[in-house]
């Protein structure tokens, strides 16, 4: 019997149809780029080069030298605060302006201003962020920092990274998918609470039952996202754990997730155990999500029922991060 299956149609996961959102995205841990270092990064389906000048500041630019096309991440050198291309030793500052050309009488004023597209870069809480915008639109908000620690300083307890085979939008949608908490994570009861979307910010404060070594415990989860790349979640009950999650598109179907987990200092042994269990549980949950993410498809018109959570409101707000044309949109 002759039967042909439309394989490409059934396996099309739909991610090549969703663009990459603009925003601040983490691309490295601070210590990966020391003074005098330059590195090439591959995210957003493209490459860029970051270096740290002797003043300690990070600078990021497009990869190819506009002179004759050398890759600025190959054999180039950090000179002072600038980056010197290996090919003919043109030197660039962080704005993409030429600061030196060794063989011509003076640097042409037009090139001095800028001739190499630069990327806004920032460094917050030990992570390096760049602002991605396909049309090089300027940043519309600032990188979000950790909330103040109620007592003393946050202690960074754990770090995790995952490379996941899914579009970046789908990962943060997971938090709005109420029904999966019971089925995938075995969390008792659907979380109830307030959900606010405001400009570039998404905030979700829920009273939830969380698993602890002493059994399920009632607590508050405060989830705060600014833009598509950064979410800070605080888990507050007898202890206070902060999860800084960044999601960075490698391309349309691959995303790099970074987690930094923080706790308060000077904890009693008992609270320390609750903390460790909380962190273990969080990691367990994302490890439960990942196989589903790696294989699922994007459903533009999902079949939703009562109890599914504010998925469509989430998507509606998220569409703002794809509004590449109207750069003048309200701040």
């Amino acid at each position, binding site marked *: 019997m002759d039967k042909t299956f439309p394989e490409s149609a059934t396996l099309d996961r739909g991610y090549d149809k969703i663009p990459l959102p603009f925003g601040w995205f983490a691309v490295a841990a601070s210590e990966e780029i020391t003074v005098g270092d330059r590195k090439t990064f591959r995210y957003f389906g493209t490459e860029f080069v970051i270096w740290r000048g002797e003043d300690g500041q990070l600078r990021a630019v497009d990869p190819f030298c506009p002179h004759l096309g050398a890759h600025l991440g190959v054999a180039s050198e950090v000179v002072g605060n600038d980056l010197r291309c290996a090919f003919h030793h043109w030197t660039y500052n962080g704005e993409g302006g030429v600061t030196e050309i060794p063989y011509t009488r*003076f640097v*042409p*004023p*037009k*090139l001095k201003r800028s001739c190499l597209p630069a990327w806004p870069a920032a460094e917050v809480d030990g992570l390096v962020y760049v602002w991605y915008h396909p049309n090089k639109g300027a940043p519309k908000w600032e990188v979000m920092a950790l909330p103040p620690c109620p007592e003393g300083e946050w202690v960074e307890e754990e770090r995790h990274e995952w490379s996941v085979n899914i579009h970046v939008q789908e990962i943060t949608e997971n938090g709005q998918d109420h029904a999966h908490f019971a089925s995938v994570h075995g969390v008792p009861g659907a979380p109830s609470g307030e959900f606010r979307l405001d400009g570039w910010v998404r905030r979700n404060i829920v009273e939830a039952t969380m698993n602890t070594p002493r059994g399920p415990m009632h607590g508050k989860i405060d989830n705060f996202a600014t833009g598509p790349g950064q979410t800070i979640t605080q888990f507050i009950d007898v202890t206070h754990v902060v999860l800084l999650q960044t999601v960075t598109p490698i391309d349309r179907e691959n995303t790099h997730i970074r987690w930094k987990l923080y706790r308060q200092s000077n904890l009693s042994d008992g609270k320390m155990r609750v903390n460790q269990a909380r962190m273990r549980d969080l990691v367990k949950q994302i490890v439960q999500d990942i196989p589903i993410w790696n294989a699922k498809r994007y459903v533009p018109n999902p079949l939703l029922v009562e109890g599914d959570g504010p998925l469509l409101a989430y998507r509606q707000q998220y569409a703002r991060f794809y509004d590449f044309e109207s750069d003048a949109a309200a701040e």
Partner: protein
Amino acid sequence: MSDISLTIIDKAGTAHALTAGSGQNLMHLMREHVDMTIGTCGGEISCGTCLVQLGDGWAGGSVSVDEQDMLEALDAAPGCRLACQLSLEPTAAGITATIVAD
């Protein structure tokens, strides 16, 4: 479109009588007919090799910020322009442009 006749004086002081159509870029005209060493950057305002002194009768129109800065960096005399920024127009008929030696 009627042709515009003009005179280009090269770096050796030799005069070249040329005719060109309106809209023709002066640097390209000179590079093709007078001196192939000018116009290194192709009109990006980054080499200065197309510097010309315009004779009386045509000033070449408005000067952009990039060109103005380049003229200053080159220490160009009054009446000098970057030929790559100039398009011939009927009012340029009969002018003389002298390529400035570096």
